[in-house]
């Protein structure tokens, strides 16, 4: 039964491609992509999938390789149980030379144990757990961790004279790192953290927390939230008539935030390494393709996924025709000055990306770059 299912899945995946594909093509090279396509975080996974499809279609059309590259998408529901099972499945498939994903650090790290053991390069577009890339030499990520973003934000705020800051973040591994790196730098620069608090992801009501923040009388609020919680937070802040500058991370950089919060999002400042209205040609063409597929501007996360896929493809090109898991890993580790839509990417020796951050602020319903 299992055999037939696997075969069926294989046929279902290969069939449409092989018809459009070249007849002489040898066995395609495969990349695995584990991501949440269903469940509570499905919106992110669906975004990644669209971004990956854009990247892959272009790549295969460009003819950089004589063989086709395929991406096998597997749905992890952001559930560690499923994530690990998928990891084993990818490892079992000898044609898969590299894996992208998962979305959350938790699932990425559970799966990473399998990849570490089996020697499979894993490149996550979003896993920001401080220890993720330390698991083994096989783990890479294409997201600047809070170790870079936190101090950057802290310096920005201090330079604007905002020294008393209330820090709130979601209670996840990512949120923990948001507060840690930001607070360390802020205190080092002479600022004070008047309050640190975590909230559970998906909390509908921030008003109790907001009232508490208001009582602590900070100059500004630094927030580690994703766009949905962010929209709720900003709306309720407006409701309570409370106005202080709010700063945030690249995770909140999503057009949906403005869609959901409307005018209440005005004035939100954040850092990002993706500017959709940047004049760079690679960004322009990605944004165009995205708008065609989705009808709205892409945010930070799809851009990261797009780059992650391209970095992986680039590594495969470099190694071809001796493409193996080990050679892809080495090629990934050697990634230098990759011109992505989220900026020029170089992997350091710790397999962490080094990227340029930019400052943006919501002005008139758009994320506008600011120079401060």
């Amino acid at each position, binding site marked *: 039964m299992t055999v037939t*299912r696997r075969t069926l899945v294989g046929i279902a995946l290969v069939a449409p491609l092989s018809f459009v594909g070249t007849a002489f093509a040898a066995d395609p090279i495969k990349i695995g992509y584990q991501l949440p396509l269903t469940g509570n975080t499905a919106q992110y996974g669906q975004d990644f999938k669209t971004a990956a499809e854009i990247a892959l279609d272009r790549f295969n059309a460009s003819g950089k390789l004589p063989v086709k590259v395929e991406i096998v998408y597997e*749905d992890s*529901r952001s559930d*560690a149980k499923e994530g690990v099972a998928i990891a*084993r499945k990818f490892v*079992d498939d000898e044609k898969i030379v590299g894996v992208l994903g998962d979305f959350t650090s938790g699932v990425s*790290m559970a799966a990473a*144990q399998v990849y570490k053991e089996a020697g499979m390069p894993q490149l996550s577009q979003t896993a920001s757990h401080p220890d993720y890339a330390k698991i083994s030499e096989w783990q890479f990520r294409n997201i600047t961790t809070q170790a870079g973003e936190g101090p950057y934000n802290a310096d920005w705020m201090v330079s604007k004279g905002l020294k008393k800051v209330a820090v709130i973040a979601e*209670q996840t591994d990512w949120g923990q790192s948001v507060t840690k790196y930001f607070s360390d730098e802020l205190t080092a620069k002479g600022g004070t953290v008047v309050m640190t608090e975590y909230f559970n992801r998906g909390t509908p009501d921030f008003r109790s927390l907001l009232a508490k923040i208001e009582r602590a009388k900070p100059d500004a609020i630094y927030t580690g939230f994703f766009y949905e919680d962010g929209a709720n937070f900003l709306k309720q802040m407006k409701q309570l008539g409370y106005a202080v500058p709010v700063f945030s991370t690249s995770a909140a950089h999503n057009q949906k935030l403005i869609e959901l919060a409307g005018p209440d999002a005005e004035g939100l400042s954040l850092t990002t390494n993706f500017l959709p209205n940047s004049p760079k040609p690679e960004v322009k063409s990605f944004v165009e393709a995205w708008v065609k597929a989705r009808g709205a501007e892409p945010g930070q996360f799809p851009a990261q996924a797009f780059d992650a896929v391209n970095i992986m493809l680039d590594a495969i090109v470099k190694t071809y025709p001796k493409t193996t898991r080990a050679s892809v890993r080495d090629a990934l580790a050697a990634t230098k000055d990759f011109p992505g839509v989220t900026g020029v990417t170089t992997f350091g020796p710790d397999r962490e990306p080094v990227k340029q951050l930019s400052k943006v602020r919501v002005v008139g319903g758009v994320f506008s770059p600011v120079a401060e």
Partner: protein
Amino acid sequence: MSEITRKGWVVPVLLLVLVFAVAPFTLAQFGKGYFFQVANLVLIFSLLAVSLHLVTGVAGLLHLGHAAFYGIGAYVAALMGTDLKLGFLWGLPAAGLVAALFALVVALPTMRLVSIYFAVATLAIGQMINTVLLNWVAVTKGPNGVMLFSGIKLFGFAVKGPLAVYFVVAVVVVASIWVLHRLSHSYYGNALRSLREDDQCADAMGIDTVRLKIEVFTLSAFFAGLAGALWAYTTGYVSPGDFNFSNSILILAMVVVGGLGSLPGAIVGAVLLILLPEVLRGLGDLRNVMVGLVMFVSILFLPKGLFGEVSALAFVRRNLGVKWGAAPSEREVGWR
């Protein structure tokens, strides 16, 4: 008698052969880690379902927080493995014992509750334990989860490779299920059933119902803790999200779909609800809808479960219960 005795050996031997020879051999034929991973999951969830079966199926106490004790076990094993450098042989029993201890502490004041009040108390306990796992960063490392790098080591030998890990998991799970089987198909199990059918009547007949409830709740948490340790060692990474309310409900669904009060049913339910989402992967986004539909249809047509209690008891009695007969000269005990 002789015929029964012979038959009494057949099924357990067949089951053991299935778990220890047929299954690993078949899986090894495919030579794939994926199948072993799924097999491990099935085993771990079978243990969880059977341990919940003792509380919810046999003793009739609706328990909505089972995953929390599973989580305690996983965390104890993982933290002992990383912070204290105590390996699997220490972690496994400790996981069970600590989970049982927690269960005992929370059970003492709450076990006087009956029916739905009990259910909601277990829900609250489960949610509280999960909140602690998530937010007590100093000890549990909070949302960062715990990474457990040291694999399973037994008496100085590292257990490597999916086949060996599978065997370790299978031995622990089979031994635990055997204990749970002996408990639920015994006088003790009958006392629990009397609790389920009519606790006032059981009380009047001299059964200490509160004590019995505390015992069974603690026991079940012990085995959930063992399952947790197995999960921690098979995945190498635990985080609070794996032990939330949805997982409690998933385990409960296994017990009910399989047949409330039926031990084989609990295993059937676990196998079904773990395999189904994997088998349906080909359906893409539709697969979870299908899981819901299959659950619904199975309950609709077999409201007493895929392997209902009555037929399960008959099956156990016929095929596994014979050992309960004492030597011919002695008075026979138990039911056969």
